[in-house]
């Protein structure tokens, strides 16, 4: 500490001295020479003249020092002195300082971490040129059965031809797909984006090397080419640019690698390792795929000068035209343009803003806490200040010194908070990966650090101001007189402190109530029955290359053999396969029911849909309610069988006559009705939505695709059967890449991450607030009790009971707690409005959540009270009065 102080002082002095010192020497030397010359003129010899001059001039070093004092910058020196003093006084009260720094570090750390997330999700530039000029175009069913839907090939081409608002449009397959890459070490599964003409032009991306896909690559008959993501290029080819121009096998076909994407690029469909070109012509020729399958994402770049709302209106109008022109395929389907960032940030905006606000509240509590702590300290140092004023310190100087002291604490707390934020972000990166948009790169960047530094300084000034102003107005005489008698603190500062504590209580109650509401709604969501039993299930996607399995029979044979082999593995109790796992984004098919005409404005409703093997319901634990599930009679060529969920049966056959009813699901089924053969229990596909949606299942024997997800129920550790799984897969076809397994529970957890994260963080903030407020309550009562110790001693001596004294302490502080709780009531209203959109199954003014918040706070407040009350009631009258 001493070395640091000396260094600071030396620095401050040398700033001015460096320039002035030699000049001062020269100037004084000139003066001495002139003096010497005069003495010579008066008749002395040179040596005597010089000696006399030195005597007349006087102590040279002393005057130099005095001159130095004049030119040395005073504000800087004062600041250094204050700084030195601030550090010294922080060290002298280690408990107070540690508490202050830790409190601040937590408050600032929470804010910096959340700001890091908010910035990377909502503020950072998307990895595209002029990203705010790009919109995403979605479909939406008027009846709400489809939101943010993909578009058909026909819609995409019609839009591109008719629109006038955009300079370029780019379509892409709505989700990344798995491809098998024949690496030297063996086949591996990579994620692929499949994109059409104009995609890269619209996003405004330039290659890191080679070229990106051109329109010609998406023409019919073009040579197959592929572009790699920067990460995949480094991973697969070690960043070797000689790989560009060479051929590599993807899904059994040779593709030329033509270029590499820039680092950090993420497409609107999500992370992908490779990008393929998409030719729409075959789809457009097929009447079903052209209009009735919605499978394309579409981005569009606004023309210069076209406002985004005009473009949105044009898209809506064109959507209405298309719906009119193709009533059979597009009735009820509307189009909408959404800014690309909103499309990609998705539903993270509201929770992030709520979290940011919560972190802000924590910081406010931090400030209040520190203000009252500094106030206490300022009060206990009143005598010191009075003495300083008495010996001539200016009031402004005193205030400045107190501000410097709080700045010292703020900077220390801010630095520590930054470390906490970095640690917090590292933790969040793991927790939030699936909950945040793919482009979000959680890091504590320069902006976040700057904002944090600003926070530290503002906080320092803010919480330094209150005690500084209180101390700046000391009545010197009275203070000196009273302090020696040890009387209690003034009414004014007592009220100030009470108000600060009341404010903390109000903010804490609000935060706790918000956290309570979120916890309650998460419980309401996770508590609702899923409709299936995920425990013990491992899921493995298996994809067969089209070339090796050209017929449906070949596919069927492979999948049936694999199911059979898996069933015999030890530890496996059931095996099934499905086209899709229950998730938020299930494939949906338009529904037609024999004898039912949908309202023309709405069109047919879209129903979540998957094709499953016979044992699917048993493996998943989905109960059969009526009729039967699929059996070997539901094979290819037999009449098509459909199993529906209870909810779907209730909604479309309210009279209970669903089994045996005839319906069609999906495009291309015109002319042949399928029959409902059974009703099974409802399933919540999206684990973050508490109510199940209507669901229909087809038999995978009658609807066979080249890729399926195997669902294996195990008796023990679900991942333990994977070795056997790989063995059986290899035995059937050694060219297949090993599957990427995931337990069903982890798939569900990923689906819930977006909901769990805000709950987790807000609860953490609520806990933090509670801790801080408890410390605040404790500090208030402790110093209140300490200030009146003498009085209590007198009362005890005069025969007052301990209970009466405890009551005195309690009454003085309880008023502020009540005020705080009332303020909290107002805060709760604000918080409830803020989180309203995040709630499920809980009213915004849920009495349980609010009651729990108040009770928790009161409990902690009471615990915080115990020590001061104990101290007050155990005052030794003799010791105090002596």
């Amino acid at each position: 500490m001493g070395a640091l102080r000396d260094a600071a002082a030396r620095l401050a002095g040398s700033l001015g001295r460096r320039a002035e010192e030699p000049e001062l020497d020269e100037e004084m030397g000139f003066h001495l020479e002139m003096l010497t010359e005069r003495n010579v003129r008066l008749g002395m010899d040179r040596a005597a003249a010089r000696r006399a001059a030195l005597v007349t001039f006087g102590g040279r070093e002393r005057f130099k020092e005095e001159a130095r004092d004049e030119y040395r910058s005073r504000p800087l020196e004062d600041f250094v002195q204050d700084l030195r003093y601030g550090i010294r006084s922080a060290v002298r009260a280690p408990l107070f300082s540690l508490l202050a720094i830790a409190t601040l570090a937590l408050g600032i750390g929470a804010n910096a971490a959340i700001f890091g997330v908010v910035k990377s999700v909502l503020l950072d530039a998307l990895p595209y040129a002029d990203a705010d000029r790009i919109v995403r175009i979605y479909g939406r069913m008027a009846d709400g059965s489809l939101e943010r839907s993909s578009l058909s090939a026909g819609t995409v081409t019609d839009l591109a031809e008719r629109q006038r608002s955009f300079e370029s449009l780019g379509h892409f397959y709505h989700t990344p797909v798995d491809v098998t890459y024949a690496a030297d070490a063996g086949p591996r599964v990579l994620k692929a984006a499949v994109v059409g003409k104009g995609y890269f032009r619209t996003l405004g991306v330039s290659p890191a090397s080679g070229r990106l896909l051109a329109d010609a690559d998406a023409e019919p008959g073009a040579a197959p080419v592929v572009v790699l993501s920067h990460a995949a290029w480094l991973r697969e080819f070690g960043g070797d640019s000689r790989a560009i121009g060479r051929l590599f096998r993807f899904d059994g076909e040779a593709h030329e690698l033509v270029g590499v994407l820039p680092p950090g690029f993420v497409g609107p469909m999500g992370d992908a390792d490779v990008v393929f070109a998409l030719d729409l012509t075959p789809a457009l020729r097929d009447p079903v795929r052209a209009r009735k399958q919605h499978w394309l994402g579409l981005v569009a770049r606004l023309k210069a000068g076209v406002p985004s709302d005009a473009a949105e209106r044009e898209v809506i109008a064109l959507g209405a035209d298309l719906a009119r022109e193709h009533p059979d395929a597009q009735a009820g389907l509307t189009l909408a343009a959404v800014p690309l960032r909103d499309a990609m940030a998705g539903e993270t905006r509201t929770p992030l803003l709520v979290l940011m606000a919560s972190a802000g509240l924590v910081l406010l509590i931090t400030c209040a806490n520190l203000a009252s702590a500094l106030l206490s300290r300022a009060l206990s140092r009143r005598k010191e200040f009075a003495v300083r004023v008495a010996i001539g310190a200016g009031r402004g100087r005193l205030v400045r010194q107190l501000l410097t002291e709080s700045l010292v604490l703020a900077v220390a707390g801010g630095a520590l908070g930054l470390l906490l934020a970095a640690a917090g972000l590292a933790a969040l990166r793991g927790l939030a990966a699936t909950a945040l948009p793919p482009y979000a790169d959680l890091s504590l960047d320069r902006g976040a650090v700057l904002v944090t530094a600003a926070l530290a300084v503002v906080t320092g000034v803010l919480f330094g101001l209150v005690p500084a102003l209180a101390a700046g107005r000391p009545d010197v005489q009275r203070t000196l007189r009273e302090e020696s008698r040890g009387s209690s603190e003034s009414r004014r500062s007592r009220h100030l402190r009470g108000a600060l504590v009341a404010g903390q209580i109000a903010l804490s109650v609000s935060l706790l109530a918000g956290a309570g509401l979120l916890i309650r709604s998460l419980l309401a969501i996770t508590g609702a029955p899923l409709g299936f039993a995920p425990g013990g299930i491992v899921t493995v996607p298996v994809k067969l290359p089209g070339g090796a399995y050209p017929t449906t029979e070949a596919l069927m044979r492979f999948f049936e053999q694999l199911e059979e082999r898996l069933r015999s593995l030890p530890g496996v109790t059931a095996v099934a396969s499905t086209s899709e796992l229950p998730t938020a984004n299930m494939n949906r098919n338009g529904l037609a029911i024999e004898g039912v005409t949908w309202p023309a404005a709405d069109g047919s409703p879209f129903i979540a849909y998957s094709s499953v093997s016979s044992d699917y319901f048993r493996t998943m634990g989905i109960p059969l309610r009526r009729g039967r599930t699929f059996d070997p009679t539901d094979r290819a060529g037999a009449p098509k069988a459909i199993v529906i969920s209870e909810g779907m049966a209730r909604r479309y056959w309210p009279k209970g006559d669903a089994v045996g009813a005839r319906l069609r699901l999906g495009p291309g089924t015109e002319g042949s009705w399928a029959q409902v053969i059974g009703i099974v229990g409802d399933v919540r596909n999206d684990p973050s939505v508490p109510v199940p949606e209507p669901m229909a299942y087809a038999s995978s024997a009658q609807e066979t695709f080249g890729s399926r997800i195997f669902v294996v129920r195990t008796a023990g550790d679900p991942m333990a059967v994977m070795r056997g799984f790989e063995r059986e897969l290899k035995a059937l076809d050694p060219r297949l890449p090993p599957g990427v397994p995931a337990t069903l529970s982890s798939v569900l957890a990923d689906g819930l991450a977006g909901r769990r994260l805000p709950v987790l963080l807000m609860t953490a903030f609520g806990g933090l607030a509670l801790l801080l407020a408890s410390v605040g309550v404790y500090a208030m009562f402790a110093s209140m009790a300490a200030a009146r110790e003498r009085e209590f001693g007198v009362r005890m001596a005069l025969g007052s009971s301990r209970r009466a004294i405890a009551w005195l302490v309690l009454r003085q502080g309880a008023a502020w707690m009540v005020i705080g709780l009332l303020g909290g009531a107002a805060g709760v209203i604000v918080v409830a409005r803020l989180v309203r959109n995040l709630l499920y199954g809980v009213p915004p003014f849920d009495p349980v959540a609010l009651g729990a918040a108040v009770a928790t706070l009161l409990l902690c407040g009471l615990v915080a009270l115990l020590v001061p009350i104990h101290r007050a009631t155990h005052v030794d009258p003799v010791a105090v009065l002596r």
Partner: protein
Amino acid sequence: MTDIGKGELLQGTLDMLVLKALQLEPMHGWGITERIEQWSRQVLQVNQGSLYPALYRLKRKGWITSSWKTTANNRRARYYALTAAGRRQLAAEQQSWDRLSSAVNLVMRMAAAPESA
């Protein structure tokens, strides 16, 4: 240090005298002491060394500025010059000095009167 013949400077008057000495033209430190001694007919002896802290003080207050020049004898020396603020300050000090000295004179003569009466 209190010999009466050679006048010690009254506390706080050095600054005022320095400003006065610079009223006509810029001057170096040595020149300032000489000028004050000349003008006071060798009665006021400026404590040579203490001139410099005073100069730096005046500079910090913004009443004088300094710059290096060559003297008539071709020597390098730092010259000090009055600023506008310095001239205002000089005028103010002149005024308050006049008031003070005439008041002191009044008192001193008044004290002598009863004796002569």
